[in-house]
């Protein structure tokens, strides 16, 4: 199956938003998400000759998006002075402490806390959850996009949900 630049340009107009949302869910920042989404499609454009049609174009681009976003996060983390562990701990701590800040809209607070909770997940757990919940991809599509088995998709999804549930439970109980 051969695809050309026109096919990719059409995909950007029809489904580029899905890729943008996936990247945003991985990064949690709109401006960074735009930069990385652009990088994703330029990378996909350069790699078009390697696309062999073993999966749909969308699934293949989701795989490219994951790799480009993961590399971006790693580059960014390397630049930071703090270690990844400190970062994740502080993210978890602030997920709760910021709930107490007065004057913030409840929805925004919740959104921010969810963002931080998501950021606290490992990349591999976060991406399967985002692909499933945000883009409603099947296990098989996620497995093809990430190059992992369906069983691994299932177990990562399960662990990601368990971790997120532990972080979100106090938020929901406070909201009641």
């Amino acid at each position, binding site marked *: 199956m051969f695809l050309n*630049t026109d096919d990719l340009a059409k995909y950007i107009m029809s489904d580029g938003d899905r890729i943008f949302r996936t990247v945003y869910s991985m990064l949690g920042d709109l401006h960074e998400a735009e930069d990385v989404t652009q990088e994703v499609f330029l990378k996909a454009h*350069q790699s078009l000759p390697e696309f062999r049609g073993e999966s749909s174009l969308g699934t293949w681009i989701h795989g490219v998006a994951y790799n480009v976003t993961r590399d971006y996060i790693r580059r960014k983390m390397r630049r930071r002075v703090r270690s990844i562990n400190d970062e994740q701990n502080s993210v978890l701590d602030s997920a709760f402490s910021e709930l107490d800040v007065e004057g913030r809209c409840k929805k925004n607070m919740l959104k921010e806390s969810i963002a931080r909770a998501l950021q606290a997940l490992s990349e591999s757990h976060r991406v399967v*959850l985002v692909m499933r919940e945000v883009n409603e991809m099947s296990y098989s599509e996620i497995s093809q996009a990430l190059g992992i088995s369906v069983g691994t998709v299932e177990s990562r999804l399960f662990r990601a949900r368990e971790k997120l549930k532990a972080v979100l439970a106090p938020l929901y109980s406070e909201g009641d």
Partner: protein
Amino acid sequence: MKKCAQFRFAQRYYDGELTGQNKALFEKHLKNCPECSAFLSDCENIAGAIKTFADVSADESFLVKLSEKVLIAPKPRLVFSSYFNSISRRFLPAAAALMMLVSSLAFILSRTDVKHEAVSDISKHHKDISIETLRNASLSNGNSIIPSEISVIMGDEGDAAVIFYDVLSGGNL
């Protein structure tokens, strides 16, 4: 707390991965399993939270600019590495087998040439040694004769050639 035996199906059911009879069986089980029901409820909360968070859209103008950028970007070229990767997946094993076959054939043919050259060379220079002498010399060496010994004891041209060829081919006298 011990988990329900059907728990592993709960996530598949929630994600729409259970179909047909499996789905019907799980739905029947779900009516009497508070643990699986609670898990599904947690999944819904998590999904709601993530969708709230990911409720964003890319600007239309951003997507238009991006598609234009892709259209004017230099055409992707099939670089050698990717070309080689795509080709090698299918043809490398066949090419390796073909190379082994060709090199094996070349080796066998070269050995045959050596034998013919050696037989022809020895038979030219040694014409006065009988087959019996050759046989005795061979037996005294434990049924293995080497070219230098043959060059000393070689007699009849035709017989020597046949015997020498047999020896080189692994046959015993």
